[in-house]
């Protein structure tokens, strides 16, 4: 199902409480990101794309699901921009739309694994679906 609702940079600011225009593109967030190689849009580009209003591209990215929510980027940011909150806000605008749950209850049995703490599945459900 395609995304129906338009989301603006102002929506992201309202949801995240983060002013992306404070970013000076130093790259410390992307330098800190432990999952950099998996992120199709790394944190520093995420911030500038929010500022440029390119929200649709971000909503269609894989980065919003691949971000580990470790908050290393937010913790290291010298200007308190908190890229993790921006990523979270964009993800929320996607999964809150109709039919956009990224993880469905049906898919849980196939994910079960002895080595995987069940808590991780619970938090993934919280993170990826309504």
């Amino acid at each position, binding site marked *: 199902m395609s995304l129906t609702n338009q989301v603006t940079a102002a929506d992201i600011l309202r949801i995240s409480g983060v002013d992306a225009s404070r970013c000076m593109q130093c790259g410390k967030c992307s330098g800190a990101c432990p999952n950099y190689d998996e992120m199709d849009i790394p944190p520093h580009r995420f911030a500038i794309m929010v500022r440029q209003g390119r929200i649709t591209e971000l909503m269609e990215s894989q980065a919003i699901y691949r971000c580990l929510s470790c908050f290393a980027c937010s913790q290291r940011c010298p*200007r*308190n921009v908190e890229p993790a909150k921006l990523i979270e806000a964009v993800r929320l605008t996607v999964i809150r739309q109709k039919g956009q749950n990224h993880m469905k209850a049906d898919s849980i049995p196939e994910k079960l694994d002895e080595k995987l703490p069940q808590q991780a599945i619970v938090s993934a459900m919280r993170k990826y679906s309504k």
Partner: protein
Amino acid sequence: MQKIGVFVCWCGSNIAATVDVKAVAEALKSEAGVVFSTDYQYMCSENGQAMIRQAIREHGLTGIVVCSCSPRMHEATFRKTAVSAGLNPYMVEIANIREQCSWIHKDMAEGTEKAIVLARAAVAKLHKNAPLTAGTSPVTKRALVIGGGIAGIQTALDVADAGFEVDIVEKAPTIGGRMAQLDKTFPTLDCSACILTPKMVEAAQHEKINIISYAELDSLSGFVGNFTATIRKKARYIDEDKCTGCGVCTEKCPSRKGLDDFNMKLNKRGAVYIPFAQAIPNVAVIDPEQCLKLRTGKCGLCQKVCSAKAVNFEQKDELIERQYGAIVVATGFKPIDASAFNEYAYNDSPDVVTSLEFERIMNAAGPTKGQLVRPSDREHPHEIVFIQCVGSRCTEDAEKGKPYCSKICCMYTAKHAMLVREKYPDVNVHVFYIDARTPGKNFDEFYRRAVEQYGVDYIKGMVGKVSVEGKKLHVQGSDLLNGEQVHINADMVVLATAIEPDPTARALGTMLTASMDTNDFFTEAHPKLRPVESPTAGVFLSGVAQGPKDIPETVAQAGAAAAKVIGLLCKNELTCNACVAHANEAACNGCSQCERVCPYGAISYEEREIRSPEFRGVRRIAVVNEAVCQGCGACTVTCPSAAMDLKGFTNSQIMSEVDAICR
């Protein structure tokens, strides 16, 4: 009854764009006492002032109201105009319709209404103005320079060369400051010590300069031209006059636990030490925290070996009281504490160093004799990573760091990178940077030389993490131009830590009543037009105490501060402020409250015989020293019996203004 003239300035379009100046001039015509009212494009111009002079003569004005910019800007100008037309300068009132109306309002009707109200208030006040005469005070022809780094030394030399006495108070045992710690200086790579130490010697030998080292300002009173300073000369346990600086005591001292501050604590030193070979004064000092004799009463080896008999364990702090006409703040900076930046593993590895530590490692007189070695194992490094902007350019609400650019780091990092590549071509040097800021004569050429000629690898992007992996440091950072995350296994990491004002600056600012910004840099009287003066009269600023700057800029500012000091000390007397406090002897009951709040110590008491219809006898009355009073008004609001009043700003004048505004 006063005959008042009102002059409304357009300030080009600064005022006229938001305030209907003609309407203001017209409205004021109907005010009581106003006999003339007009407007003009630039009232401060020669034509505008001529218009004021002409109106004063033609209409026999007894006072004028100028509706213009802030009185800080042009009150003095219009007072001079009034004087030249025969008026007392204190018969001039300014209604600030620029900063308080046009610059803050967008709507013309609102701006105009407020301008009229402010002008009416000024007219109401002027009705109660009386001519005032300012007194004079003498000028002590001696300057005090606080801080003996390159800024303080340069200011002192320039002031002394003009023939005035200068005292330099330096808190460290030697003058020289941060510059003495540096190896080479950008952009010419000349040796820092080679250009600084001759200046130190010149200052020491100058007949007009008196260096008071290992001392701090203890207290200060007085005002411009007449400061009284108490200087605490800390006990160094060595007689400065006897010590020859031979250094025998420093070699024999058995205590080896003290950390060498001059070498950024990279090595240990004895309890008795001379900071560095070219120290001035070249006199040893005993660290009481480390000295066995002072701590336990046993030892005293230094005393036994001293052939000059200079060691004196009985020495106490000494207080010196002196008068000064001007004070120069040259307290300099320190690098911020890098331990808050543990994402760069500063606390985890001795091989992560700050730039100033690196400076000492590269210095021929430093702890490694200039050999580039890793602090952990003294091995030669092959891969060095420099990280810029550590703690600079952070927002105020960020967890740590400073909001400003520290200005000098881009250049000294290029210098370090170049020096390493020049001396050790086998070492790979990487510099992570956000922006390379190189404005300055020959600065960008210098930085490009590091890249093009010396092959320094500049990577645009910040480091996110440094972790210790065995003997190596794993550096993970961004390469923004290539859109990649980079990983480097480094042997050393150098942090270009932000600089901050010396920690003594805040207390000093309070003592001098000199204003500071939120980062503890001293504020200048005007950011563009009075950059070397503090808003506090008689206090001048030199060097990084005012804001981050490099050596050429510091020396230029030091000279500028000296010129201002000389301009002040040349005068034989200063005109005092005429708007001073005054006690009404009939109302004063001698309660002493005003004396307690006066920040300048201007109020004393005398027993005075009163012969009035209501009271006969002797009463204790407050007396204001008009030369000392700065007209701050603290006493007038404190006085419980309204006996204290400020000339030019009397209680009744202020109430008239309020009444006019509320009318």
